[in-house]
């Protein structure tokens, strides 16, 4: 079978032009995909998890009913459970996770807290002039990548949306676009750019503020390792372009000033709109991390780091975000779904997951499942089950199923756990 226009759910680009060729129960070929995506589709059956429970210090295989029952028991008994993950699954599963959190009075957080959490905090502070990737493709003549590396993290972003495609008002493709890369080190993305600006590590806030001052006509001198002439030259380009866009990544959210870095970038773009049309977009990482914010917002009012212990949702990053809850050793049980905190959290935070009963729902064996009390395997959203995912610019796309799976989708697993908790 050949399936056309399949959505790849690996990164926030959610490319929706993938062609998947199946032969019986296996994926034989993938077209239009980048290296990550090929690896994901072709290796989907590798390294799959089993239903496991830790008994006498060892994970042993159990029937699904036992794993679900035990998981429900743990969550029911816990005084301060944590539900975390949600970025690599589809929106129905995300919604069920919120329902479960409300039912058991849990804290619920998604991987946003360790990627673009600071971005959301900044947007809540001062708003953002965003646009869709389609608008970038059809209109943008100045594209600035700041603290991100799409050439290695969002591989097809350049060809589908931001650098080479020809669109309605961008008929000349690459030639008609000026590309700028601002980062602390030269990467493959710098090679795709016309101008590379090297900023000193941790000094983005200063540089962004200098740009804002320069836009207002001040002479700012050399800032954060960037010569005054470069700043003046770039500000001229920003003010005179027809449609500018800044794409920014974790280089802003993960360093020193965090949300204040993003705040400065959002305000720079706001200032630039006095001169021309300018927009700004975060480079969201995991396939449906953007959806986890949307789903949590429409269900609870808040995008991440929400606590239900009072029976109603309370939002506070730093207090109810997963790394903090774990580092303070507050939770007494954890349900990790569609993410791998042991691979991504500071070791000091992961350590608490070893001490408490941790339940992992994931298609694959991951590092968190190695320390879990219960492992429940699931179908891969967008390959083995359908659903909806949100692209990095907030556009929802429908995921299709291309191959049958012996495993249940995340949403079904959560539904069964909810039934058992209620029973």
């Amino acid at each position, binding site marked *: 079978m050949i399936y056309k226009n399949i959505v790849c759910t690996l990164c926030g680009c959610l490319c929706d032009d993938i062609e998947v060729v199946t032969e019986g129960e296996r994926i034989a070929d993938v077209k239009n995909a980048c290296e*990550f995506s090929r*690896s994901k589709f072709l290796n989907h059956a590798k*390294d799959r998890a089993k239903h496991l429970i830790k008994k006498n210090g060892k994970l042993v295989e159990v029937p699904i009913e036992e794993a679900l029952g035990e998981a429900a028991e743990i969550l029911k008994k816990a005084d301060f459970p944590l539900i975390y993950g949600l970025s690599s699954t589809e929106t129905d599963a995300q919604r069920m996770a919120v329902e479960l959190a409300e039912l058991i009075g849990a804290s619920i957080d998604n991987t946003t807290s360790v990627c673009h959490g600071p971005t959301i905090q900044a947007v809540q502070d001062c708003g953002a002039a965003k646009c869709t990737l389609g608008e970038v493709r059809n209109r943008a003549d100045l594209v600035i990548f700041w603290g991100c590396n799409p050439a290695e993290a969002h591989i097809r972003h350049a060809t589908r949306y931001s650098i080479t495609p020809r669109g309605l008002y961008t008929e000349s493709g690459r030639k008609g676009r000026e590309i700028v890369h601002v980062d602390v080190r030269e990467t493959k993305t710098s090679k795709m750019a016309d101008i590379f600006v090297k900023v000193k590590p941790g000094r983005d806030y200063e540089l962004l503020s200098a740009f804002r001052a320069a836009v207002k006509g001040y002479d700012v001198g050399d800032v954060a390792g960037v010569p005054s002439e470069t700043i003046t030259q770039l500000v001229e380009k920003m003010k005179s372009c027809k449609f500018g866009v800044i794409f920014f990544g974790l*280089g802003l*959210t993960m360093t020193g000033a965090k949300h204040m870095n993003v705040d400065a970038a959002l305000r720079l773009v706001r200032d630039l709109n006095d001169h021309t049309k300018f927009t700004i977009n975060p480079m969201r990482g995991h396939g449906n991390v953007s959806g986890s914010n949307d789903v949590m917002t429409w269900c609870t009012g808040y995008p991440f*780091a929400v606590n239900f212990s009072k029976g109603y949702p309370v939002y506070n990053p730093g207090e109810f975000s997963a*790394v903090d809850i774990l*580092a303070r050793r507050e939770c007494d049980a954890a349900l990790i779904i569609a993410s791998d905190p042991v691979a991504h959290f500071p070791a000091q935070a*992961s350590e608490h997951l070893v001490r408490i009963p941790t339940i992992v729902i994931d298609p694959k064996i991951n590092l968190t499942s190695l320390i879990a009390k219960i492992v429940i395997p699931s179908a891969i959203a967008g390959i083995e089950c359908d659903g909806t995912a949100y692209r990095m610019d907030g556009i929802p796309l429908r995921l299709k199923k291309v191959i049958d799976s012996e495993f249940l989708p995340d949403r079904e697993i959560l539904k069964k756990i909810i039934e058992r908790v209620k029973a």
Partner: protein
Amino acid sequence: MNYMKVILISGRTTKQGISLEMGKTSEEYSNNVAVIMMNENDMKKIGAKEDEHVEVRTKFGSAVVRCKESRIDRGIAFMPYGPWANMMISADTQGTGMPDYKGVEAKISATDKDVLTIANVIERIKEIK
């Protein structure tokens, strides 16, 4: 011991991304993620050659990884996201929810010690007091 101070940054690499999908317990994953990228002059300074082992230490922890020459400024070193970099990062988010994944002060020195395997990393996490 010859060590040097650097600013440690962690981030995504293509190899890390692809090997993620091969499985995190695979050898490819360790080979591609348990590495640190440094400026060639910094490598000379600590007496480490391509693919030799170095110990990276911060206030929060340490790990042994292989070093690789890269076009990066002196005084900066880069590690792919993953459990080895995580050993070096503080869980204190200063009330933001976000740890300082990029921009931690670290000391790097050449070493004869083995690179930690995934199993070692898990053991180390279990031992944290």
